[in-house]
């Protein structure tokens, strides 16, 4: 396939200088008139000013959503699906631009945004457009005269809080099922990465009726809190860390609304010795699987941040695997050959460096990386780190706490039972990887691992129609599959009697 020559910009000209909130189908200045500066993690260049909203703006967004909800809820599924498909088309038509914006706002390499984040976002809209067309309620004939009809009805107005690691894709995961099920949404993108969703409102905001989708920019404490605790939402969806997840669930307990929570992980990536039985394409794939902890610079909830290697092949495997990691190209994320860009923010980089220090203190052996990277030039101001590999044991803090960076902790196991035991010795249960040529083995391990998704002989694939969500402290609810529609709908039962006879009680 020919790769057209593409020109990317460090500050795409298509961006506005300033973004207000998108409420009721139009751009609306924040009530308090405050803005924050959104900068690029590549070089700290300002990309745009963005509304620093407050509770008043959340109320305006909720007003608009409530005004729109009855009509949207009654809109035919075919029409809602048609609109979602058009949103997907607009994303595809502007793929390079959106990928460019996502890359400079978040730091993720353009090869990832062009080939994963943006096309997947479009596909999730299409997937849920299809699901709703195929959905139907049910009826049960309870007796000759009595029928129970079950209708799927929207919840009304829902709140969604999006993380900064996959700004557009996580928004698509949450928006597509909510909108297609007939809900109106107030969504808060992360303040570090507001631009891809802001741009999408410019590109596709006209497609939805005013008020169906409202975007309020700002900080968690100033926008997220009033949104999550509002008695005017019927559901809250959150992706983020555990303490805030708890706080949001406490609010939801006060207003008695359902929640979905995706709260991170410390995913094991388990390599059995038979991956080295042959030096072939499968071994190459497994070695890539080892290096995938550096995907999106490790800023992924499912980052395979613990590699468990069968003892009998440890030295041989590690020699090849570490060589693979050492070859990871860190640098300008707008260069198509770059594999790892800068961490998303200064605070994030600092946290990761603190963990590298903890790993050293704990006596883990640093095998590669362990420091800042210096791509030179303008990028000296960027938040670049080298992909880092430690060898240690699973009781260490670097094996137990989510670092959310390109830091891999490696340990060994003797046999299948020990692999499962170490794999499950974690607070979290979002993802896991299992690599073996023996499918009976991978099946057994996959069933025993306490995680919502076990990638088997693969990792970091996020297709629509495969359920994603956590066990244990990684949260609950399953996204990217039609079953998430259940979380954005409620069931109406019409219990109908076609008999003309009284019951006979009174």
């Amino acid at each position, binding site marked *: 396939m020919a790769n057209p020559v593409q020109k990317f910009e460090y500050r795409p000209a298509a961006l506005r200088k300033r973004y207000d909130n998108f409420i009721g189908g139009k751009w609306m200045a924040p009530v308090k008139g405050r803005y924050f500066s959104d900068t690029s993690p590549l070089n700290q260049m300002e990309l745009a000013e963005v509304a620093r909203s407050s509770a008043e703006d959340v109320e305006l967004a909720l007003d608009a959503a409530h005004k729109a909800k009855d009509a949207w809820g009654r809109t035919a599924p075919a029409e809602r699906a048609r609109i979602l498909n058009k949103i997907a088309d607009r994303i595809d038509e502007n793929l390079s631009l959106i990928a460019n914006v996502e890359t400079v706002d978040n730091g993720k390499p353009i090869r990832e945004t062009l080939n994963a984040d943006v096309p997947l976002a479009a596909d999730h809209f299409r997937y849920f457009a299809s699901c709703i067309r195929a959905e139907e309620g049910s009826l049960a004939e309870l007796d000759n005269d009595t029928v129970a009809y079950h209708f799927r009805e929207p919840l009304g107005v829902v709140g969604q809080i999006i993380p*900064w690691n996959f700004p557009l894709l996580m928004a698509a995961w949450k928006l597509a099922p909510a909108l297609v099920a007939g809900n109106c949404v107030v969504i808060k993108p992360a303040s570090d990465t507001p631009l891809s969703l802001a741009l999408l409102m410019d590109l596709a905001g006209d497609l939805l009726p005013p008020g169906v989708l409202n975007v309020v920019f700002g900080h*968690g404490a100033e926008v997220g809190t009033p949104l999550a605790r509002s008695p005017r939402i019927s559901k809250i969806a959150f992706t983020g860390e555990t303490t*805030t997840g708890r706080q949001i669930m*406490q609010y939801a307990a006060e207003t008695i609304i359902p929640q979905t929570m995706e709260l991170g992980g410390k995913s094991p990536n388990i390599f059995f010795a038979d991956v080295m039985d042959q030096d072939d394409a499968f071994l190459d794939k497994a070695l890539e699987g080892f290096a995938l902890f550096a995907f999106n610079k490790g800023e992924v909830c499912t980052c395979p941040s613990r590699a468990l290697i069968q003892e009998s092949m440890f030295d041989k495997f590690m020699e090849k695997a570490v060589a693979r990691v050492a070859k990871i190209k860190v640098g300008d994320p707008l260069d198509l050959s770059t594999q790892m860009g800068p961490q998303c923010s200064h605070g994030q980089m600092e946290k990761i460096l603190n963990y590298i220090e903890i790993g050293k203190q704990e006596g883990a052996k640093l095998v590669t990386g362990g420091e800042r990277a210096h791509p030179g030039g303008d990028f000296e101001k960027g938040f670049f780190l080298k992909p880092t590999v430690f060898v240690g044991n699973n*009781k260490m803090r670097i094996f137990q706490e*989510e670092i*959310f960076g390109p830091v891999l902790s490696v340990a060994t196991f003797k046999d299948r039972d020990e692999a499962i035991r170490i794999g499950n010795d974690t*607070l979290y249960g979002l993802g896991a990887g299992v690599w073996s040529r023996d499918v009976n083995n991978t099946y057994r391990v996959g069933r025993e691992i306490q995680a919502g998704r076990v990638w088997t002989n693969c990792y970091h694939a996020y297709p629509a129609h495969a359920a994603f969500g956590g066990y244990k402290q990684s949260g609950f609810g399953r996204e990217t599959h039609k079953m998430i529609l259940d979380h954005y709908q409620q069931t109406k039962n019409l219990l109908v009697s076609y008999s003309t006879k009284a019951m006979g009680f009174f």
Partner: protein
Amino acid sequence: MPDRVLVTPEAATLIRRLKAEHGPLVFHQSGGCCEGTAPMCFKQSDFRVGQNDVFLGVIAGCPFYIGAATFRYFAYTQIVIDVTRGGGDSFSLEAPDGVRFVTRSRLFSDVEARELDAAGPPAMGPQAFQQCQSADGQENQSRPQGG
């Protein structure tokens, strides 16, 4: 017995400013995704400390808690709460000002670890801070839990 949690002067100044603006505060060490594994600063009225939260101590007059499951891995680590340049989106109260509290860690020495073991497990739940307050009344830079 060594303190389990300390605070740098810069972080203490920021905490006092946030307290003047928002009222009584509570810290909770988070885990997991994105902003996780960071100390979160909330209004006391906005976050309910539960019986499964371990009380690590007091920083600049504010209680510092950590979930019991996470504490298992922090039991032999002294943490120092510092402040750094932002960002990172967060529900923590300092984040809108472009700064972030960060947790810096030091492993306790063997002598310190034995002292901590001898003192028994730290207190849990919201009452732990209340008891600590009534024990010495004073708001201070940093205090270990009462006892």
